[in-house]
C-alpha cells in the first residue's frame, strides 16, 4: 500500500507529521491573517494505512476560489469587445469566444453587454461584524490545539452556500449574521472535543464542507444570539483505509469529490459518485444532504454507497459496529444521518463502496422530435432497467441553449453543421423549436457497451429518436459544469437565475414539467417580465419515476424600481415549488431542504414525521447546539 502513495500524498504526510511550532495566537490577537493554531502531535493523526490526500483546494479557499461567485477564480464568463467568452484553461470551452451564446443572451435574456453591474469589492476587515465569542471559549480551543480563526474573511467565506440569495448578498449587500469563529478540526477526535466544548459553552455549531449548498443550509440563523462556530471539515480529508477485498474505503468527511476520485483512481478505483458539484463538494456534505450522482445507475446514490458512518452528536457518537453488506437489525440509523443537514451532529468519517475503474467509457446522444417522446423513451429504458451509467434528457430550450455554447465553427464546420441540420429538420422532419436531446454515458467492457448502445438506440427508434453521436453527448456533460458559472455572468447584466429540482412519478413527469413552465410563464407575464428563461431536464431515471432539474432566470430591468429582483425571484421560485407539489413532485430530489424549503417539510413527511424528527433531535442535541435551523425551525425555548 505504501508503494501506491504518490508524491503529493507523501509531502502532505510529512508536513502533517512534522511537529510544527505551535503558534500562540494569543500573542497576535487582532491580526487579520488567520489566527490559527496548528497542533499535530495527536494520536488521531497516524493510523495504519492512512492516505493523506493533498486537496486542490487550499485551506485558505480564496487562494483558488472566488469569494463571491461559483468555482475557480480563473474560470468565468467575461466580455471581450461585444462578445462573451470563457476564461481559463480548466474547461474545454476555455479561452474561446462565444458569439452564438452572446446572441442568445441578448435575444433570450435581453442583456446589454455594454451595461454591466460590477460587484462590490472584497470587504475591508473593518466591514465585518465583530466576532461574538467568549475569550474563555477561545482559550479552551487553544488548549485543545484546534486551529481556529475569528478573522472576518474566514467567517464570511463560511457564512453562505451558493444560492442566488447568497450570490446576491455577496455582490451587493452584507449578511446580517456570519459565524463568529471558524475551526478546522483534523480528525474525528478533534470534532468530538469541539462539540464537547461547544456544549459546555452553549455555542452553536454549523458544519461546513465544500460550501456548495443551494438550500441555505450553512447560513447562520439571523436571530441566533449565541456564539456561532463554523466547523470546517476541509482539513479532515484523509482516506483512512481501503479494503481491497470488500471494495470499501473509509474516508474522513471533509474530502472533496475531485480529490477523492483522483486518489482512488490512482489505485484503480472509483466511487462513481459524481454530483454536478463534485469538484467542490465534500463527502460529509453528500451524506448530510442525501446527494445524488450523475452515474447513480451504475454506482448508486449516496445512500446506496454508504456502508457506515461516524456521527458526532452532543450526546455521543453514533456509528455501526460492523461492516456488512446489509443487516436486519432494527431501523437503519444510517438514515438518521443521511439527510440530517447538520441539524443533529457532524459526520466525521464515512465508509463507502468503491468500484474498479471501468475499462471503457463512451458518450452518446439521441435527438427526439419533442420532449414527450424523449420522456417516454427514458421511461421505457427505465422499465427495462437498461439505463446506462447516465441518461439525461434536455428540453428544447436547453438543447438550443447548449448549441450556443461553442466557438464559431470553421468553414468546413459550417458545412457539416448545415448538413446535420438539414438531415434532422428537412429529412427527418424535426422541428427546431420542439426537438430535444438525450445524452448518455456508458461504462464497462467495450463489447458490453456496444451491445448496450444497440439496445438503447433500438428503444429510442420506437419513440422517433435518432442517435446524434458521441460529441453531442460529451458536450452535454461538459456543459453541466460550465453552466454553473453562468449565473455570475448573468448577475452582472440584470439577470437573476437559479436552479431547482424535484423527483416525480413517471406518469406525472411530463405534466409536471409543463405545469411549472406554464406557471412561471404566466407569472412573468403578469409581472411584465419580457425576458426570461425556463428550462428543464430529466437528469435521473428510476423504476418508479424521474428527477427533473429546472433552470429559471429572468431579466429584471423591466420591473418597477420599487421591487427587489431577489425577492421577486424567491416568490416565483416559491410558486414554482407549489406547482411542483401540486403536480405530484417532491420537495427535493438531492438539493435538500435547508432553510429555503423548510416551510414545506411538514407537508412532505406528515406532522407525526416532524414529531419523530423532533424527538430524535431532542435526544441527540438537547441544547440545540446544531442550531442551523434546517428542515424544521425549532425555537430554542422548546428544547
Amino acid at each position, binding site marked *: 500500500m505504501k508503494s501506491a502513495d504518490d508524491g503529493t500524498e507523501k509531502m502532505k504526510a510529512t508536513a502533517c507529521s512534522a511537529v510544527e511550532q505551535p503558534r500562540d495566537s494569543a500573542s497576535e490577537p487582532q491580526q487579520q491573517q488567520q489566527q490559527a493554531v496548528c497542533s499535530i502531535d495527536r494520536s488521531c493523526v497516524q493510523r495504519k494505512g492512512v492516505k493523506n490526500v493533498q486537496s486542490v483546494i487550499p485551506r485558505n479557499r480564496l487562494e483558488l476560489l472566488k469569494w463571491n461567485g461559483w468555482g475557480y477564480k480563473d474560470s468565468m464568463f467575461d466580455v471581450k469587445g461585444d462578445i462573451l467568452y470563457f476564461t481559463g484553461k480548466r474547461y474545454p470551452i476555455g479561452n474561446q469566444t462565444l458569439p452564438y451564446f452572446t446572441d442568445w443572451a441578448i435575444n433570450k435574456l435581453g442583456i446589454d453587454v455594454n451595461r454591466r453591474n460590477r460587484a462590490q469589492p472584497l470587504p475591508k476587515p473593518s466591514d465585518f461584524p465583530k466576532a461574538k465569542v467568549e475569550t474563555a471559549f477561545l482559550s479552551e480551543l487553544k488548549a485543545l490545539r484546534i486551529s481556529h480563526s475569528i478573522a472576518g474573511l474566514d467567517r464570511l467565506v463560511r457564512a453562505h452556500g451558493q444560492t442566488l440569495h447568497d450570490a446576491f448578498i455577496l455582490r451587493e449587500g452584507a449578511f446580517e449574521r456570519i459565524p463568529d469563529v471558524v475551526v478546522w478540526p483534523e480528525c474525528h477526535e478533534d470534532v468530538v472535543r469541539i462539540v464537547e466544548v461547544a456544549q459546555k459553552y452553549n455555542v452553536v455549531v454549523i458544519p461546513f464542507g465544500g460550501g456548495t449548498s443551494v438550500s441555505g443550509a450553512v447560513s447562520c440563523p439571523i436571530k441566533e444570539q449565541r456564539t456561532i462556530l463554523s466547523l470546517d471539515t476541509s482539513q479532515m480529508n484523509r482516506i483512512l483505509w481501503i479494503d481491497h477485498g470488500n471494495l470499501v474505503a473509509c474516508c474522513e468527511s471533509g474530502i472533496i469529490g475531485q480529490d477523492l476520485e483522483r486518489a482512488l483512481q490512482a489505485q484503480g478505483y472509483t466511487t462513481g459518485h459524481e454530483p454536478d458539484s463534485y469538484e467542490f463538494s465534500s463527502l460529509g456534505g453528500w451524506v448530510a444532504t442525501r446527494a445524488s450522482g450523475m452515474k447513480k445507475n451504475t454506482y448508486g446514490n449516496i445512500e446506496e454507497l454508504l456502508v457506515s458512518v461516524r456521527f458526532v452528536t452532543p450526546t455521543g457518537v453514533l456509528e455501526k459496529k460492523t461492516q456488512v453488506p446489509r443487516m436486519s437489525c432494527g431501523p437503519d440509523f444510517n438514515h438518521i444521518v443521511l439527510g440530517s443537514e447538520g441539524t443533529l451532529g457532524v459526520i466525521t468519517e464515512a465508509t463507502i463502496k468503491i468500484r474498479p475503474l471501468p475499462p471503457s467509457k463512451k458518450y452518446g446522444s439521441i435527438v427526439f422530435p419533442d420532449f414527450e417522446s424523449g420522456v417516454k423513451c427514458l421511461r421505457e429504458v427505465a422499465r427495462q432497467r437498461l439505463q446506462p451509467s447516465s441518461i439525461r434528457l434536455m428540453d428544447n430550450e436547453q438543447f438550443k441553449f447548449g448549441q450556443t455554447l461553442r466557438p464559431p465553427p470553421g468553414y468546413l464546420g459550417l458545412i457539416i453543421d448545415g448538413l446535420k441540420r438539414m438531415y434532422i429538420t428537412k429529412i427527418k422532419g424535426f422541428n427546431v423549436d420542439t426537438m430535444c436531446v438525450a445524452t448518455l454515458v456508458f461504462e464497462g467492457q467495450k463489447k458490453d457497451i456496444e451491445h448496450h448502445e444497440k439496445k438503447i438506440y433500438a428503444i429510442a427508434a420506437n419513440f422517433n429518436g435518432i442517435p446524434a453521436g458521441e460529441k453531442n453527448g460529451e458536450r452535454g456533460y461538459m456543459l453541466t459544469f460550465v453552466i454553473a458559472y453562468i449565473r455570475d455572468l448573468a448577475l452582472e447584466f440584470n439577470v437573476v437565475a437559479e436552479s431547482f429540482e424535484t423527483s416525480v412519478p413517471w406518469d406525472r413527469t411530463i*405534466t409536471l414539467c409543463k*405545469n411549472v413552465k*406554464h*406557471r412561471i*410563464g404566466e407569472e412573468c407575464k403578469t*409581472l411584465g417580465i419580457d425576458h426570461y428563461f425556463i428550462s428543464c431536464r430529466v437528469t435521473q431515471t428510476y423504476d418508479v419515476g424521474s428527477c427533473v432539474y429546472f433552470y429559471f432566470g429572468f431579466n429584471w430591468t423591466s420591473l418597477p424600481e420599487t421591487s427587489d429582483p431577489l425577492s421577486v425571484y424567491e416568490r416565483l421560485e416559491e410558486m414554482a415549488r407549489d406547482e411542483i*407539489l*401540486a403536480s405530484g413532485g417532491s420537495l427535493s430530489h438531492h438539493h435538500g431542504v435547508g432553510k429555503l424549503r423548510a416551510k414545506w417539510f411538514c407537508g412532505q413527511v406528515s406532522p407525526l414525521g416532524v414529531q419523530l424528527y423532533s424527538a430524535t433531535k431532542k435526544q441527540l442535541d438537547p441544547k440545540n447546539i446544531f442550531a442551523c435551523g434546517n428542515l424544521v425551525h425549532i425555537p430554542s425555548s422548546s428544547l
Partner: protein
Amino acid sequence: MSTHKVTGTSSFRNMNSFSDILEERRHSSDVAWITREWNPIRTVRDAQATNPIDVRKAVLNSMRIKEVIKELSQERGIAPEVLYKEVEEQLTEIGHNRQISIVRWIGLFVTKVLKKTCSNLMVNEEAISKLKSSMGNTPVIFAPSHRSYADFILMAYICFHYSIEIPCVAAGVDFMAMWLMGTLLRDCCAFFMRRQFSGDKLYYTVFSEYVQTLICQGTAPVEFFIEGTRSRSAKSLVPKFGFLSMALEPFLTGQIPDVLVVPINISYDRILEEKLFSYELLGVPKPRESTSGLIKALNALDEKYGKIYADFGEAISVRDFLKSHMFQRSSHSMGPIHLQSLSDQEMSMIRILSHQIVRSQQQISVLSPFHLVAVILNNNLLTNGTFDMQLSELVKEVAWFRSVIEMFGATVDISGDVEICVREALHVHKSLITLLPDGGVQLKAVHTPGTKVDVSRLKGHALLDDTMNRAVPLLMLQHYVNPTLHFLANPAMITTVMQHLEPSGEISRDNLFPRYQLVRGMLSHEFVMHKTWEEKDFDEALRVLDLVNIVETTSAGLLSLGNHRKLQVLLCNVLHPFFAGYLALSQTLAQVCGEARPERLVLCEAQRRVEMGLKSGEVSHPAALSLDGLSCGLQALVSVGAIHKIRRGEEVLYVANLKELKVVTEHLETLVALHGMDHKWSWQQLELHQSLPAKL
C-alpha cells in the same frame, strides 16, 4: 401577484362596449362572410388532440379505460373485447364532430333567420378581445347561461364571427334522437351526455375521460350549461356540479396548470319558448324534442324577437380562485392519476365556484326595456289590483325604475328617448301586451280555453281552465320580471324584513342581519345565493338601500325605513309571490307529509292549494303556481330542516319535521301579511284583452 377578482360587485359596464354583429351582415354579402378564410384562435396552441379522431383515440388508449375494462371484465365475466366494443359504441354516441363546412352552412342559415327575426345581436367586443388575448396556453371552459335553445346556436355563431375555435358543447342525448338535428349539432362540435349515468360505471368512465381529454389535450373551448337545463322561469337555476367537477379534476390532480372558466350571459329581449315555458311551469309538459316540432317552432320565426345580448365575463382562473379561498392543491400525489377522486373539500370549492359562475352570469346580464315594463305592470297589478295603465304613465315609471335598478348594479339597454324604447318593447311583445289606440296598456289572453291537455302527462295539478286563462299570460309576464330579481332580491329581503319591525321601526345592523339570514336561507335556492356571501351581500344591499333612501341611519346609529315608499312597495311586491307559494307549500306539507310522500304528490297538492288561494283571494299572484318555484321551496325547507328528503331508488319522498315546519310556516305568514299595504288586487277582477285566440 395577480389577485383575481373573483367576487364582488360588477365593475361599471355600459352598452358602449357592445356592438351589433348583425349590422355588418345587413350591408355585405352573407356568402362572402360565411365562406371567408377562417383561422380560429385556439385554447392551447400546442395541444395534441386537434381533431375529434385524436380525442377518440386518446380516450380509447387511456389508462383509465384500460383499467376499468379490466375491472369490469373480471367483475361481470365478460371478455374485454366485448367491453371495448361497448366503449367504442359509447364513444360514437358521445363524440363530437367538427365539420366546418356544416358550420358554415348553418351559419348562413342562422344569419338569414337572425336578420329576419332580431333587430340586433349585441356582443361585448371589449370582453371578447380580452378573452382572446388570454387564450393560447390554458384550457378554457365556456359557461353560458341557458334560457333558450338558441343559446347553442348563438354561442357557435358568435365564436365563428370572432374566429374563436367552435366550442365543444355538452348536449343532452335527447337532441341526438332528433332526425338530422343530432347529426348537425354533432358536426357543429356538440357531444352528447346521457341524463342519468351515475350508476353506469363504464359509461361514466368513458364520458368523463372524454371530457377530460377535451380539457387536457383539446384545442377548443369546452362549453356546458352550468344550470343543467334551460331555465323556464328566466331566473338562474341552482348550478349543477357534476360536469364542472369532471372538467376540473385534471387541474385538481395536477395534470394541467390551470383552467379558465368564462361565465357567459345571453340575455334576450324576448324568448322563443316564452309560452311553452309558462305552460311547463304550470305543469303542462314540454313536447318531446323532435324535428317536426322544431319545424313547427320555425313558424314562430315569423315573429319579432328584438335584441339579443351576449356578454363574456372575466375569465375565472380556477387556480386564482382556489388561492383566494386559501385552498392548497397537492393532495393527489399518491397513487396513479386515474384512481384519484376529488375530496369533500374540493367538491365544496367547486360548489362555491359554480355559484360564483352563476352570479357572474347574472352580473353581466343586460336588461331590456321590456323587463322594466314587466316589473312596472306587475307591480301595478299587485298594488292597484288592475293591469291597465296609460302608456305615458308606464313610460314615466320605467324611467324612474331604470334609475333605481341601475343603482342596484344592473345594465339597462335604454338609450335616448324612453318612450320610443318602451313602444318598441311593446311592439316586440305585442302577442302578450296590447297597446290600445287610446294609449292604454292591457295584458292579452294567450291561453286558448278548452285546449286539450293530456292529463296523464301533467306534472302538476290539473288546473282549471279559468286559472290557466289568467295564469299563463301572468307567468309569461313574470318570466320578464324574473331577470331583474337578481339585482333586487337582497335589497328586497331587507326591505321586507324592515316592513315587519316592531312599532319603533328601528333596528341595529347586528339585529337585522340574523333576520335577513333567515329570509335569505329560504330564498337562497330561488335566487342562487351561496351561504358564504351572506355578510357581503347584506352590506352591499344596505349600501344601495341607503343610496335610494329606503334605509336610513338614525342619530342613535340604528337603521329605519326611509321615505321612499313607492320603491319599498315595489320591492315587497316582487318577493310576495314567492313567499305566498312557499307558504302554501309549507301548509300543504304540514297537512300531507306526516309520513313520507312522493315529490310529485306534494307539488300537485301545493298547486291545488295555491289555486284555491287565488280563488279565495288569499293568494294574489299566480307565480306561486310555478312548479319550479315550489321545487325551490322544497329544497329551501329541506335546508332549514323543516322537512326531510328521502331517496328511494329513483323516487324522492318528503316527510315533515312538524315542529320545525310550524316555525317556518309562522314566519312565512308574517312575511306574506303585508303590513300597512293596501291590497286591492283580486284574482277574479283581472280582465284580459281578448284578441284572436292565440295558439299553443
